[in-house]
């Protein structure tokens, strides 16, 4: 593939990844890593390193749209980030010791799980928990967000189990080059019972910091090609900007399900590569 074509393919992939990542909160890494490994045949650590930069760009590009809406709970994001960054640090440290086929297998399983969970109904959508848990009360995690032009207070439950899940989410983020948004959103949505848009925006805030923890590792390690990372960042920034804007007007649930079907196909391809077929 010529350098110009490579740049254009990666740019287009970044655009799609950024839009999907910011719209669904699932993170663009699920698009970028398969694109780089399956289509451009990049080694897994290099694809992961580049993808992490795409994940930071997704978070950065979508963030301006959330400012002033109250969707992003900064206190909660910071507290959970301690767990996510710890997991990311461990994931980055062992990343070069894990065989590529095993990474393909894990990636395929994570993709399938993400796809299946997208079809599950969100019981607490836009409602929130009734009471703050004792830890949430102590950490003052409850907040408010704008819904139909009105500020709505919400409470936070299940802080400790969600903290544990964030360690795993950070670990997978560093190992696979994904934002792990699906785990973060699910933990906040189902365990902490946050309104869905609060979960999505807070996850978006967190995935940038989680990815930065391990992206610095991959960059210093010499795994990030600027000729690939550059177009990914440009594409993702543009896509995330558009996706962040559409988030408030498009039927997000429908989009998540369409994306989930696409994920299933790519996941099967990754799993086949993992088992050597």
């Amino acid at each position, binding site marked *: 593939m010529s350098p*110009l074509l490579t740049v254009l393919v990666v740019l287009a992939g970044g655009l799609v990844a950024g839009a999907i990542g910011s719209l669904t909160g699932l993170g663009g890494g699920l698009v970028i890593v398969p694109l780089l490994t399956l289509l451009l045949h990049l080694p897994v650590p290099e694809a992961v390193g580049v993808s992490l930069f795409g994940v930071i760009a997704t978070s950065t590009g979508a963030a301006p749209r959330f400012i002033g809406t109250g969707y992003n709970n900064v206190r909660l994001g*910071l507290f959970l980030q301690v767990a996510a960054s710890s997991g990311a640090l461990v994931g980055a440290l062992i990343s070069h010791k894990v065989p590529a086929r095993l990474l393909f297998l894990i990636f395929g399983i994570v993709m399938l799980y993400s796809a299946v969970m997208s079809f599950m109904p969100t019981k607490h959508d836009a409602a929130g928990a009734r009471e703050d848990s004792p830890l949430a009360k102590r950490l003052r995690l409850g907040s408010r967000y704008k819904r139909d032009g009105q500020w709505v207070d919400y409470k936070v439950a299940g802080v400790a189990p969600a903290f544990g899940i964030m360690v795993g989410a950070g670990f997978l983020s560093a190992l696979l080059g994904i934002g792990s948004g699906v785990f973060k959103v699910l933990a906040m949505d189902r365990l902490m019972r946050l309104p869905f848009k609060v979960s999505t925006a807070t996850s978006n805030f967190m995935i940038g910091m989680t990815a930065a923890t391990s992206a610095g590792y991959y960059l*210093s390690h010499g795994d990030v090609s600027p000729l690939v990372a550059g177009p990914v960042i440009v594409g993702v920034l543009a896509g995330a900007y558009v996706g962040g804007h559409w988030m408030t007007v498009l039927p997000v649930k429908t989009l998540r399900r369409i994306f989930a079907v696409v994920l299933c196909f790519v996941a099967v391809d990754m799993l086949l590569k993992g088992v050597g077929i």
Partner: protein
Amino acid sequence: MSSRLEGQRRFINLWILRTSIGLSLVSILIGLGVFLAKGRDYLPHTPAGSIASIIVDACQDALSLHASAFLDFGMLVILFTPLVRLGAGIVASMRARDWLYVLIGLVVVALVSLGMLTGQAGG
């Protein structure tokens, strides 16, 4: 946090994000333009080593208008954006005398910095 401090925090956050997006986009687009104009002989090299050494290399490449300088700069801007946002959050928490979140923010800064240092050491 008072509404005045909250308003300032939002303004600074927005400014950081827009500056970061603008700088990164412009820098990477110039880098790609230089590379495509000059051709394969100017294939950008993959940075490695400490973040400080990557910055020094990018500055040296910039003097010869090498595509690497612009691409590396754009990547570094993106890499440091979450840290800068975090720093702004810590300052806002300090102004609000919210010491618990100052401490939590500093722990996260330490973890992110550790990631960069361990990569340099070959992890």
